[in-house]
Every structure is written in structure tokens, then in C-alpha cells.
């Protein structure tokens, strides 16, 4: 096959080698270095340090918190995600299509900015809602305390439930409606059908979404960092950050970090393994049949209440925090009331044009995310092409390596690149923008691989073969046939990387140097320093860029559909 395609030059082997090399350097070696550093000191097994770290109460406190947060977030995200997915795809809720789009909006908002907003609204003493309610009811204390495990769980759930929502809504739409109709004609009412047919058939999708939520929340940094550390609530990622930050980046702290990171890697691997098992249980596969309209539950009297409930949910989780950020960002000082004379654009002018720290942060984030998105898109295309299209021996190594970025949490990637690029191997990028750049590539390679593989799988092999049969060289058939066809996938990959990278926090916070703060780091630092107003102003800038970017994606994808 390869010989036929490429003659004896072995381009396939070269492509494979280059792809493997990139993945090994960017992803595999850093992860291996973490495990190595955690296990060995000067070439001998380092059980004493491991035991010491593991036996510290703060370690298992952090581990316990990570698990509690992950369990809580997964539980609530699953319930909310399944409920709303069912509501928009199996009932006659009005404005369904609009609601479907709105439920995905929380995905686009950075959760740490959400946490920032909720801190402003619900912090025990200064939170606007708490203050309002205390005044209203004449209470001494506050009603809500966002600085708690339940606060963290609530905020993370708001921004992670779309993982479940997307999976389940998609599966419900693909599901053959006659599966439900045949239950109906068998005599079952809608509630029985939902319980005995629909929900069991949705189990794999629900599980897949829930495990993704578990994977993210277990290793999530932003929300616990903003809402937890204030009261000494640490999870594993924030513990790692605290250790390294307090010691000023000492090697001992980093080694502790590697031991904690190993726990994250193992947990992530375990979750992915379970997910694989669930997806492999093939007997649940639901084949789509004739596309008939599915059975819709008539909500009758509940129609309007449920619509209002959905709108209220969107209002509370999306609009309220976003508006809060914009309003607080334009206040003259934190804590004053939202009246027109208390607001101005001075803050915006200051952070955009005068303050070097914020100016640098915006600039750094822009070029780092644009650059990383571009490089990752190109490299991802190359690797995906090798995985999907070239039937070369040894491809399975690539497939395995390609899976790695999906499972490695951002904190772990940061520690990995620190170990790899701080001079140990002759190159020292520590405290430069390059180390963040490399970390972004590793962090977002998964998105590029996913998007590009999906696009490439759509391109039938015969299209390329037809081009070759017409006399095109391999390169020509790539350039004129394959790349034009997968361009939408490549563009999608670019934006899928650019937008999250722009507001990245988890990795950058461990890697930034004096001149290489990013937007995420700057917002975090401003918040830590008590500059809540400036933090909000900078967050508003980030939100504006994200909203504009999302609209651009919409425009691009829509014109693409028209074009075909």
C-alpha cells in the first residue's frame, strides 16, 4: 500500500517519524519526566520523598477536596445537563432552538472569570447579593458563602454542564424515534418510555459527558484558585501552584509538584479508561433510522414555567456574572454602588493604554495564542493526516501518543515543560514567552487532532486516489484536493485553540516570568492583590475579545455551509 502510494522514497515513514518526534518532544517526554522526577532522585528510587509528600495532611486534604469537587460537579452537571437536553429535544418547550444555543454559551465563558464575578456577588461580607439580602432581611451575617466547597462546586457546574448537555442532546437527536414509538404502541406511556427505553439508551452518552466533566473538574485550577485559596481550601492543582509559588520555584517544590501531578495523571488515565470501556459496550449503539419527528412530551401547563426556569437559569449563570464583570470593571472603586456617577471608562483607558503590566499581558496573550493556534493547527493536520490517511506500520504509536494530550491536565503540562526546558537538556526557556508557547501547543494539540481527524475522515480515500489516477503527484493531490476539503476543519481547529489559549490560566500561572504575564495571569494576580476593579476591567476586555471571536466563528462556519 505505502509502496504503491509513495514509490520507494518512504515519505510515509518520514511523515510518521516527524509526527512522532513532535508528539514525543512536546507531550510524551514532559509527562515521562514528571513520573521520572517523582519516582527517582539521582537515579535511585525516591520512596522516602513520595511517602513524605503523600503522608502530609495537606496532600490528602487537597486530594480529598479534588475528589469532592469532582464528584459534586459531575453529579450536578449530569443532572442539569440531562434535564436541559431532554427539555430541548423531547418536549414541546417554546423557543427550543434558541434555548439550545443559549445552553452552550457557558462553554465559551472562562470559568475563572465566572468565579471572579460570583466572588463579587456572593462573597460573605462584600458580595453584592449578600449585602442586598442582609439589608433586606436585616440579617447580621450573610446568606451565602461562595468561599466554600459548595461554592466551588456550584460555579464549576455552571460552566461545565454543557459537556453533558452536548453529548445527551446530540444522542437524543440521533436516536431512532421508532425505538420510542414502538414502546408507545406496545402500550407504554411517555414516563415509562423515558424511564425504560430512552434513559437506558442514553446511558453511554450520559456517562461520556459525565466522565469529561469529572476529568476537567478533577484537575481544574481557576475556580478553586479564586474561591478556595482565600479560606485555605486547596485542590491538587492549586496545592501544586501554592507549593511552587511559595518556594519561588525551587526544585524541591517542583519535585513535590511532580508527585502531586502523578496523582492527577493516574486519575485522568483511570477516567479515560472507564470512558473507553463505556463506549466499547457496543450493544447500546443506537442506529438512526428514518428521520421522523420524535415523540414530544406535551408540557401543557408547565410549558411557560419551564421556559421561564430555563431563561432564569441562563440569566443567573451567564448574563448576571457577565454584566457584573462589566459593571464592576467600570467602577471608580470597589464596593461603591452602581450609579452612573460612580462609573467611567477611566479604568479601561488605564489598563489598555497606560499600565505597562496589563498592556503587556494583553499583547502577550494575543501573540502567544495566535502563534500557538497557528502552529498547533499545522502540526495537528500533519499528525492527523498520518494517523487517518497513511497506512504505515507503527501508526499505533502515533495513535497512542495522540491520545495523551486529551488526558494530561494543564498543571501537569506546565510542570512537564518546566522540567524539560529549564536547561536540563541544554535549552533554557524558563521565564521566556517560548516556554508558555510550547506549553500551549502541548495543551491544545488534542483540539487540533480531534478537529482535523474528523475533517480527514470525511474525505474518502478514493478522492485522493482519483487525483493520483488523473496524474497528480502526491503533493499535488494533497494541495489541490485534500487541503481544500479539510480547510473548514483546520479553521475550526485554529479558533478552538486561539480562544481558550487567549484566556488560559492553569498552565500560564506556573510558567510566567516578570515580563511574560498573560491576560489570565494578570486577572488572577490583580484579584489576589485586591485590585478587584482592575481585575474586572481586564476580564471585560477578555470577554469582549471572546465574544467577538465566537461571532467570527459563527460567521465563518455559516458562510462555509452556504458555500457548499
Amino acid at each position: 500500500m505505502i509502496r504503491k502510494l509513495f514509490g520507494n522514497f518512504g515519505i510515509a515513514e518520514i511523515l510518521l517519524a516527524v509526527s512522532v518526534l513532535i508528539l514525543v518532544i512536546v507531550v510524551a517526554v514532559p509527562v515521562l519526566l514528571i513520573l521520572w522526577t517523582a519516582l527517582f532522585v539521582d537515579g535511585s528510587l525516591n520512596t522516602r520523598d513520595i511517602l513524605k509528600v503523600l503522608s502530609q495532611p495537606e496532600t490528602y486534604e487537597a486530594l480529598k477536596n479534588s475528589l469532592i469537587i469532582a464528584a459534586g460537579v459531575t453529579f450536578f452537571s449530569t443532572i442539569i445537563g440531562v434535564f436541559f437536553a431532554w427539555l430541548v429535544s423531547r418536549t414541546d418547550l417554546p423557543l427550543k432552538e434558541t434555548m439550545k444555543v443559549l445552553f452552550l454559551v457557558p462553554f465559551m465563558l472562562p470559568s475563572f472569570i465566572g468565579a471572579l464575578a460570583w466572588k463579587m456577588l456572593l462573597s460573605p461580607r462584600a458580595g453584592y447579593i449578600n449585602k442586598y439580602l442582609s439589608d433586606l432581611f436585616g440579617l447580621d451575617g450573610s446568606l451565602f458563602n461562595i468561599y466554600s466547597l459548595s461554592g466551588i462546586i456550584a460555579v464549576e457546574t455552571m460552566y461545565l454542564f454543557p459537556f453533558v448537555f452536548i453529548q445527551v442532546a446530540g444522542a437524543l437527536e440521533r436516536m431512532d424515534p421508532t425505538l420510542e414509538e414502538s414502546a408507545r404502541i406496545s402500550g407504554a406511556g411517555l414516563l415509562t418510555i423515558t424511564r425504560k427505553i430512552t434513559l437506558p439508551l442514553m446511558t453511554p452518552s450520559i456517562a461520556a459527558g459525565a466522565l469529561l466533566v469529572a476529568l476537567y473538574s478533577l484537575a481544574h485550577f481557576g475556580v478553586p484558585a479564586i474561591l478556595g485559596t482565600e479560606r485555605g481550601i486547596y485542590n491538587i492543582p492549586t496545592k501544586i501552584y501554592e507549593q511552587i509559588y511559595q518556594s519561588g520555584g525551587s526544585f524541591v517544590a517542583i519535585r513535590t509538584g511532580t508527585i502531586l501531578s502523578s496523582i492527577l495523571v493516574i486519575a485522568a488515565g483511570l477516567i479515560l479508561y472507564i470512558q473507553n470501556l463505556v463506549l466499547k459496550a457496543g450493544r447500546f449503539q443506537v442506529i438512526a433510522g428514518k428521520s421522523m419527528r420524535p415523540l414530544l412530551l406535551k408540557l401543557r401547563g408547565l410549558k411557560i414555567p419551564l421556559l421561564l426556569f430555563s431563561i432564569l437559569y441562563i440569566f443567573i449563570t451567564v448574563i448576571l456574572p457577565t454584566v457584573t464583570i462589566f459593571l464592576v470593571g467600570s467602577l471608580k472603586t470597589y464596593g461603591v454602588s452602581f450609579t452612573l456617577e460612580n462609573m467611567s471608562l477611566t479604568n479601561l483607558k488605564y489598563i489598555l493604554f497606560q499600565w505597562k503590566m496589563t498592556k503587556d499581558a494583553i499583547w502577550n496573550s494575543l501573540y502567544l495564542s495566535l502563534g500557538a493556534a497557528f502552529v498547533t493547527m499545522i502540526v495537528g493536520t500533519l499528525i492527523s493526516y498520518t494517523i487517518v490517511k497513511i497506512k504505515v506500520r507503527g501508526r499505533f504509536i502515533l495513535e497512542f501518543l495522540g491520545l495523551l494530550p486529551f488526558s494530561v491536565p494543564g498543571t501537569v503540562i506546565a510542570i512537564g515543560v518546566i522540567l524539560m526546558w529549564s536547561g536540563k537538556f541544554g535549552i533554557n526557556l524558563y521565564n521566556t514567552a517560548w516556554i508558555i508557547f510550547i506549553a500551549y501547543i502541548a495543551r491544545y494539540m488534542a483540539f487540533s487532532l480531534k478537529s482535523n481527524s474528523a475533517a480527514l475522515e470525511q474525505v474518502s480515500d478514493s478522492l485522493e486516489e482519483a487525483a493520483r489516477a488523473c496524474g497528480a503527484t502526491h503533493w499535488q493531490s494533497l494541495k489541490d484536493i485534500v487541503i481544500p476539503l479539510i480547510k473548514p476543519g483546520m479553521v475550526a481547529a485554529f479558533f478552538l485553540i486561539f480562544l481558550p489559549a487567549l484566556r488560559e490560566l492553569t498552565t500560564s500561572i506556573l510558567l510566567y516570568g516578570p515580563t511574560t504575564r498573560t491576560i489570565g495571569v494578570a486577572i488572577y494576580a490583580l484579584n489576589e492583590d485586591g485590585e478587584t476593579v482592575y481585575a474586572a476591567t481586564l476580564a471585560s476586555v477578555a470577554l469582549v475579545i471572546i465574544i467577538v471571536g465566537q461571532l467570527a466563528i459563527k460567521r465563518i462556519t455559516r458562510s462555509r455551509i452556504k458555500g457548499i
Partner: protein
Amino acid sequence: MTMSHVKLQDVTKRFGPVVAVNRLSIEISQGECFSMLGPSGCGKTTTLRMVAGFEDLDEGEISVGGKIFSSSFKKYYLPPEKRDFGMVFQAFAVWPHLNVYNNVAFPLQIRKMPKAEIEERTRRAITYTGLSECAETYPNELSGGQKQRIALARAIAINPTVMLLDEPLSNLDPKLREEMRFEIKDLQRKFGFTILYVTHDQAEAMALSDRILVMSEGNVQQIDTPLNIYHKPANKFVFSFIGLSNFLPVEIADSAVYIEGQHDAGPLNVELPPRTLERRLILATRPFEIDIIREGGVRGTVKRVTYLGDVIDYRVMVGNVEVRIQKNRIKEILREGQRCGLKFNRILWYEHQP
């Protein structure tokens, strides 16, 4: 056949501006196998879904055994789960998370029957459909034919008086399709239920049905026995839908029938159409109803000869009009380019439409 069992009266269904089913009235007898035949989008599936209760009616009434099931006048709809029908879908619709036994037992469990009765009825339905070997198997380990047997077993488990079949054989390969036809017929003999059968395959409808309804664009074209549908199609549409067909433009001159503009080829050996003043008509005939003769007849030239296994397919040009003829292999085989004559046996007349 006794009194009318399933009765549709002036049933109309609109999807936006499209009239999917237009004032359809049928009466189906107890124990009858009634097919609805037509191209996709003709309204046959919509009709079945209205009978099942999945679609409501814009106008009309549906009653079963004298009881009203759906009525647009009375704004009454018995929900599908209360109709006690058996139904089989094209895409099998067997539940992948339940094994064969539990798929079949489901409608009985829903009805909260005693355990022993569920067991007995399920076993019987499974035996009748030839699934006894794989009662504990999950559907995805079974073939398409077996999946459709599960669906059949599930439908007969409750002993329904009416069975709705929505293209149940279209997802099966041709050989299996033929086998299953007989099995459905056998089950009907055994249980005596009334069948409403939707299909786009005329051979299937012919083989199974007592009566066939041919539909097009929501309108009834003909309701009749398979024999009459084939031999006395009500119109050109039914004629062409039910089998291969020639529609030849002809004109009448000097009390003889000629193929339009081909007077040189000679007159057709057919009687003049009764009581017509039209000079131009359409002559409809099936490829099998034309004989090829050496001398006489309408003269033409063999344009193409195709071997279709048992049958040989000829395209004969009479001037610029193409006539399709099919003959059994045993007959003498003509070569392309050869001159020949055509003799018409069974024909039908339709009006000429410009």
C-alpha cells in the same frame, strides 16, 4: 370477511401547505390484509401513523371495531399506547439494551399481566417467529432478519386485532424478504388479525394483500384486489406503478390504429377503442403482452437486446418510437438491427395528455 373493522372516513392531513393525505376513506374488514402502495411521499406512511395514533387528523375520523379512535370533529384522540395495536417498523426498532425475551415481553409487562402469563405468551410469540434459540441474546448480535422477527414477535405478543406494518421488509435482502412475506401471512392465518401494510414494493403488496390501495400525492388512485390492480389499472399512474409498461402515442385513421406519425409501419392488430371521438390516444401495454413476429404486424427494428437471466429484454424502434418487449428465453432470439413485426395482445386505452 365480516363487517368493516378499521374504518377511515374523509381522513385529511396537512403539513403546512402540503396536503399529505386528502379525504381518504377506506373500510377494512376483519382479518383482511390491506396494503397501501405508492412512491415515497405519497402519504401512505402518514396514513398508517394516523391509524397508529402518532399523528393527529386535520379532518376526518378513524374507528376500529366500531369504536372511534381519532376524530377531528370530536377532538378526540386515543393515544397510541391505548390502542392495543401491534406495529412493526422499517428500521426494526428493537431495543438494544434488552435481550430478545425482554423485548418481546415488554408490551405484556406494561400491561401488568401475571408473571406466568407473560412467560407463556412471550415463549409462544418467540416460538412462532423461530427465535427460541436466541431468547437470551441481545439484538445487536443478531442479523437483520432476526431483528425483524423480534419486532414481529413483540407485535403479536399481546394478540392484537390489528397489525400495522410500516415497510417491514425494506431493510432485508431480497431472499429473506420473500421468506418473511410467507411468515407474516402464516402468522396472520394463525392469529387472524387485520393487517394494514405499507410498502413501495408492488410485488410485496401483490403477494400479501387481499386488497391494495394505490396512492399518489395524498390522493387515492385505486382500491382493488391485486388481480384487478394489475389487469384493470384505473389510470396511467397505477398502470405504470404496478409493473413495467409501454405508453405508446397512437392515432386513429380510416378505422385503424397507427403509432403516431408511423403510418408506414402499418396498423396495430388491435380493436378500436369503444365510444371515443378522440383521434389521438395513449395505448398502454406491458412488455410481456407483445409478441415479436417475423411477418406482418407493426414493422420495426431491434435496437437493443439485453439478457436478464430468465428473460430477454428487447427495445424495438418503430420509426422514432421505442417499444419495450420482454420474452422468455426459450423463444427465438433476435439480433440487434434485425427487422421484425409486433403483435399486441392485452392493451388498455388512456387519454392523450399533451
